[in-house]
């Protein structure tokens, strides 16, 4: 039984830990072809939103719908449509690049022989494929982690601060990749506090501050000005 969807919806989602409010009644929709930018200062709740979208956390109140089905009804098969790249990178430092990719490929039911090679090429790591990841620079690890997250061609692509540690050229490549994914029908959700990179890349903008959704609108020029107006100095 295959699960697929063309939109993901947060319906009145809140998440709190005792007295601390991480998210407050957030309602958002993102559809196939969107690049949704979650922008906001540190601690605003962007990472929490991404974690909830990835089914790694459940909201305290409210619901997340994939297509029009809630997460609980879709079961484990839902996760084959979700790809996550977070700050921590999720790579085993003791294993080589090739072994990392092969493991995750098999975990997602893919044939490593046909998927690992192209992914290594795409990350520019084909010549260092058999070295342990612990010896890689941050940028190399980021590229590898990007490929790992996208191996199974997920429908919902969740990126949390993907540009950290990348130089100009690499950031540009990541941005192009995101555009290509969206053009191919993926739903891209990008959390970042790097406004310059977000500008011109995202198609929709959701501004988050203190766990609240301050605005949700299509992207337009003057992103930084808009951000400043609604959230404060960036």
């Amino acid at each position, binding site marked *: 039984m295959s699960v697929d969807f063309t939109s993901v919806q947060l319906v009145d989602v809140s998440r709190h830990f005792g007295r601390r409010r991480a998210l407050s009644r957030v309602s958002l929709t993102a559809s196939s072809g969107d690049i949704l930018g979650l922008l906001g200062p540190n601690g605003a709740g962007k990472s929490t939103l991404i974690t909830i979208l990835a089914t790694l*956390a459940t909201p305290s109140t409210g619901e997340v719908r994939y297509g029009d089905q809630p997460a609980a009804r879709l079961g*484990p098969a839902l996760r084959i449509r*979700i790809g996550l790249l*977070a700050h921590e*990178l*999720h790579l*085993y430092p003791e*294993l080589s690049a090739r072994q990392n990719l092969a493991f995750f490929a098999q*975990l997602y039911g893919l044939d490593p022989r046909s998927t690992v090679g192209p992914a290594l090429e795409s990350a520019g790591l084909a010549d260092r494929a058999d070295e342990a990841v612990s010896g890689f620079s941050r940028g190399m690890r980021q590229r590898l982690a990007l490929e790992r997250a996208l191996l199974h061609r997920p429908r919902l692509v969740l990126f949390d601060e993907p540009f950290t540690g990348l130089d100009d050229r690499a950031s540009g490549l990541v941005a192009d990749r995101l555009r290509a994914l969206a053009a191919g029908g993926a739903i891209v959700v990008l959390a970042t506090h790097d406004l310059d990179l977000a500008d011109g890349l995202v198609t929709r903008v959701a501004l988050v501050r203190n766990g609240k959704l301050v605005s949700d609108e299509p992207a337009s020029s003057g992103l930084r000005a808009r951000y400043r107006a609604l959230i404060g100095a960036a």
Partner: protein
Amino acid sequence: MFFRTAWLVLRKDVAIEVKSLEVLTTTLFFAIACVLIFAFAFVKNGQAPEDAAAGILWIAIAFSGTLALGRTFERERYAETLRALLLAPAPRPALYVGKLLGMLALLASAELLLVPLIAFLFQAALFSRPLLLVGILAGGTIGFCAVGTLFAAMLVRARSRDVLLPILLYPITIPVIIGGVRGTAALLASPVDEPSAIMWIGILAAFDVVFVTLSLWTFEPLMTE
């Protein structure tokens, strides 16, 4: 998908461990050090008290098991790879089973060393009934690892995880230790007390079933935030 995922996790853990053998060698060495400490504590006039061998064996298993659990899950904590595993499209309890099998393999290796060592140091006739011995060791180790793997996994994101693991694990696995020690002692009695040993294997098996089932049930709710 379930068993395939468990197998993939197990294979990955073995692949990582084989590169450096860090957890295996340090756990083995710690187990030996444990045995020696208890030997010096209890041996008087060159003689260990009766049943000391059984007790020391299971204490060494419990202590080195706790250490190994902490170290194994510390690896998953490092790059938050446990989160990546939780994103796999398999039922999440499959991850638990994979980790459990890895821990069992690790402790079984430790026991392969500990049992002959203790038989040697304490002149304990542990090998007189090898099948029963394997039964007791298996029953006890599975019980200890079943609870230990769950607790170590759930503590990965908690504060004070190093000290909380023993605090939580030891009281709950006391029945396993009792069963293991008494069962092993029954094998060391002269004459060998086979009915007792078989009874303890039965109790340990029941414990194992209950606790593996409970762990499979609670794994997913515990691992989602």
